[in-house]
């Protein structure tokens, strides 16, 4: 199997820590794989016709295609080892995971333990520096979208939140309202700004600590980004951009210019209010975004700025399974944060692709194929208890457990996640009682006021500065 991807020397900046998840706007184009977050969140980047045609040809030959715009698995799903090799990044080792545990004193997140985040660039350098007391900061982002958040969207934010807490570092979240406007035909800039504002509430509802988190819309923050953006723009030629992003001459000139806007927050000089220059940046992202950051890292090298370190996630299967072609118009294909508990359970029961036997007898006799069973795969992502997961896996594979039972357990877990969210967010919600029949997430979100969003979006807050000044002082001591 061949892997078709952008040539290694032509890397590219682009979003961000939104690993794919079930049900994407473009999921219809991706048999077997969905990448909601990355594509719908960061926008359909440089979706050039000519490029699509080329990719279509490769696809026709059964090749694997992974670029920031396209994810096409081969027949057996994505070959991640091959991707690591092609992109030239490094697999995450168990030693590294142990080291993270040692350094942070926290149990590694299950996304790390179970290999959902599986690859990296410069993670060792980042950890070495951290060990010596050199703090970094985390950069992630989201393209404004009118879509409801689904569980898949949550992966990058949950992981980012864990990283932030474990390492106790600042976090910046970029909302690319400008990009969305440039890529979406009928969208106005005002509407894009409004969507970004609303999305900020979704993100805040995930429970980020306002004292350590800065959220910004590009259209608000460009004044501070611009000097950095210019320096990056100056080092990317149109040809490189064209080769990397495959933009079409009929595309607007903003699409290509934007690439540099998105790369800018990967450098701490873009945040003079609360970060010192030269602080390292850490970018959690889906693996398909890697080419983007290769370009960003190359520019960093030219400028002698610290290269952003990256950590990559795999893609999540769609509810209907690896082999199913999904349709974005069918709301049942994703588990939305805004769904009620009842609805979540119903979707799982009805749509989650089963690797179990067709009948109870068959299942008792042969057991389930865990690799294709979506309920089990989802439990792997969302169930915290390692022992229980192992038990379920063994029993299910051996035929001791039935699909219905596994699905029920997944329903419990997912409902818990949606609820847990709200409980995590004590800072914002003070553990308010929630209505059981309403979506927990919506109730939590409804409590977020504009003033809270304003607080998150103010770069000049004293609390941002002081919380890290304190941190640095402690380390020095």
């Amino acid at each position, binding site marked *: 199997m061949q892997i078709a991807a952008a040539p290694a020397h032509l890397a590219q900046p682009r979003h961000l820590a939104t690993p794919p998840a079930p049900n994407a706007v473009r999921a219809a184009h991706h048999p077997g794989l969905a990448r909601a977050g990355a594509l719908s969140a960061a926008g359909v980047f440089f979706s050039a*016709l*000519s490029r699509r*045609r*080329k990719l279509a*040809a490769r696809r026709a030959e059964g090749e694997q295609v992974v670029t920031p715009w396209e994810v096409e698995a081969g027949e057996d799903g994505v070959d991640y080892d091959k991707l690591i090799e092609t992109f030239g990044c490094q697999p995450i080792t168990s030693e590294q995971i142990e080291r993270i545990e040692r350094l942070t004193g926290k149990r590694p997140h299950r996304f790390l333990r179970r290999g959902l985040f599986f690859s990296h660039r410069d993670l060792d350098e980042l950890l070495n520096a951290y060990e010596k007391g050199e703090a970094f900061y985390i950069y992630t982002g989201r393209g404004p979208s009118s879509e409801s958040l689904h569980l898949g969207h949550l992966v990058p934010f949950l992981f980012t939140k864990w990283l932030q807490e474990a390492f106790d570092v600042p976090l910046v979240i970029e909302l690319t309202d*400008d990009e969305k*406007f*440039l890529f979406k035909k009928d969208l106005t*800039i005002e509407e894009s700004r409004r969507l970004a504002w609303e999305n900020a509430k979704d993100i805040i509802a995930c429970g980020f600590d306002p004292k350590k988190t800065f959220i910004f819309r*590009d*259209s*608000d923050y*460009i*004044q501070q980004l*611009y*000097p950095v*953006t*210019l*320096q990056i*723009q*100056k*080092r*990317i*030629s*149109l*040809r*490189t*951009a*064209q080769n990397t992003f495959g*933009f*079409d*001459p*009929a*595309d*607007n*000139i*903003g*699409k*290509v*210019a934007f*690439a*540099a806007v998105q790369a800018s927050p990967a450098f701490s000089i873009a945040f003079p209010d609360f970060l010192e220059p030269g602080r390292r940046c850490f970018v959690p992202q889906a693996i398909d975004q890697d080419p983007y950051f290769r370009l960003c890292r190359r520019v960093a090298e*030219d*400028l*002698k700025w610290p290269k952003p370190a990256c950590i990559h996630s795999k893609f999540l299967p769609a509810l209907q399974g690896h082999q199913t072609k999904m349709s974005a118009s069918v709301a049942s294909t994703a588990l939305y944060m805004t769904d009620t508990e009842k609805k979540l359970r119903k979707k799982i029961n009805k749509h989650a692709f089963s690797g179990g036997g067709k009948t109870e007898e068959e299942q008792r006799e042969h057991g389930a194929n865990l690799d294709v069973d979506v309920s089990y795969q989802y439990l792997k992502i969302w169930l915290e208890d390692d022992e229980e997961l192992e038990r379920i896996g063994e029993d299910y594979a051996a035929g001791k457990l039935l699909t219905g039972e596994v699905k029920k357990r997944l329903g419990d877990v997912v409902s818990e996640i949606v609820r847990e969210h709200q409980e995590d967010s004590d800072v914002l919600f003070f553990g308010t009682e929630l209505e059981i029949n309403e979506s927990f997430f919506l109730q939590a979100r409804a409590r977020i006021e504009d003033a809270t969003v304003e607080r998150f979006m103010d770069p000049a807050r004293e609390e941002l500065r002081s919380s890290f000044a304190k941190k640095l002082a402690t380390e020095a001591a």
Partner: protein
Amino acid sequence: MAEGYPEAEAKPKAKKPRPLPPPPPPALATASLLVRGAAARVLGLSPGPCGGELQPIWVTEPGCSKITMSFEGTSREPFPKEDAHNALLIALEAETNRLAAGGRIAVFEMDKADAEKKYGEDIYEPKSQRPDRLRLAHLPGAALVEIPNNWSLCASTSDCGKIEFLAREVEAGSKKKPDTMIMAKKKQVFVKFSVGNPDAPAADIGGEMPSEDEAKALTDKSVRVEVLGVDVKDEAKEEPASKAAKSVTEEVKAEGEMVVDPWSVKGKIDYEKLIRDFGSTKISDDLLERIRKITVGSGRVSDLHCWLRRNIFFSHRELDAICALQEKGKPFYLYTGRGPSSAAMHLGHLLPFMFTQWLQKAFDVPLVIQMTDDEKFLWKGEYDPEKGDNLHVYKRFTIENAKDIIACGFDKKKTFIFSDLEYVGHMYPNIVRVWKAITYNTARGAFGFVGESNIGQSAFPAVQAVPSFPSSFNVPFKGDQHLPCLIPCAIDQDPYFRVTRDIAHKLVPKDHPLKGKPSLIHCKFFPPLTGAEGKMAASDENSAIFLTDTPEDIEKKITKYAFSGGRQTAKEQREKGADLDADVSYQWLRFFLDDDAELQKIEEQYGSGQGEDYWSAGQVKKKLIEVLKQMVKKHQEIRASITDEEVAEWMKVRELDF
């Protein structure tokens, strides 16, 4: 790109139509020649034999036509495979529009025998009837082909407006073929296209016939346009970035031919022709009279500026509309700018500001001045291993240049000077709007970007465009979204603002009096000291008088370097008089000597070699030195009193008083 502007001079041509085939409307006929010329350059063809059969679909789809060309015998060997066809068509469309922007077209008749003898048979298309008397059309650098007798063409290639290729894709699953495609099997290219200005009038076109060599070059089938993704893959083999802002296409220019675009001005300038090529309008005596009534009539100024009186500002776009608004008491604002590339400005740099200062005073209107420090960084910025990028240097140049600008005597309460680096946040919503409205193709056609241009350069035209829209100045203009804009600029900057005008309606409310289009007033070039051709450049020190020059410097430079149109000997000068057109001292006096009577005296005496005061080059130079010394001294005195704090006040985002 091109203006859809009715041209006063262009009159519909009364040609007797022949029964068959129906002649295309002039805009489509002109566009079809452009497509052929472009196809020849992109695909490596000879524009005659490749043919250009037109389908008369304009009957049912006004403003559209479909052309069929053959690429039999292309020099692109082997012909690129199907996956490259899209790139070829894109390049073809871009090249068509680039040629259209060039403006020039010539039509002439010749006897068949003469034509064949002079130009060979490549002028014919395969199906030509080859009549005894031929009509030939010449697109410089692109095509020399026979055209049917019943065709009429537009006065300028830019008149047909933007040429767009249509129906490049068919819906998935459809068995129909796209209307615009390359069919390798039949060796044919089909292009369905539309023109931006389908009603562009026909014109009687003359023009010179090209020389044999020129014509021969057109039929050599060489590929003159490199196509991204087809010809251009290896970055290492590309031209260096310093040439980034040049056209990608091979320059097919005869020695001494006039070239005017935002990056270069070469050759002897024919301003009448520029007006025709650019599609702008000459400033008529009537218009001058209207301006006089509004400005001198108000008592704010005593006379029209001498550059208006002397036709140095000679061309415009919709200045009459600005006047009409003024006559009703409606305000407008002025926009001009400067790229702070160095701390040292020369006289040529100051001219637009001197004139803008007069406009502001005469019309009593607000003014915004853009300092494009970001632009200069993107084009000229340098990296220092110790200190990093030198962005700060351009910030400093901005302040230094602002002092020179302020010294021109603007009204502080009505003037806002801003640096892009500092003001970008306010402009950004408009910048992304302009980004969204301009395709890479348009940008490449109008601004000449190549693969090596950086992505900031290709994005920059938007930054220069947005000050044309009042919503970029919500604070200074107190939220007024309807204020029209007038831009004084040298004629070579016109292409920039043509693109701005094309997309303007997307950035203003629907009832904006000029639909958002900035009005323009164009000036001629200020000749360099060393000769009247071309414009003054800061790169050659001796070609310019700097604002920091001492009286001795000025005297020395004028005496030594000012190109003289005077004769070799006194005797000859007395007999023949000087060549005033070539004489820089006289040309400069036209700019800087306000006294009409004195100037006329110089003109008469120096031009004829007669009289006492100004018959010789030495006397004229002496006068110029005197004028310049006084002017520069006054400027230096005022500038010396302007502090950084003073500059900060002018650059503060604040409400203007108007």
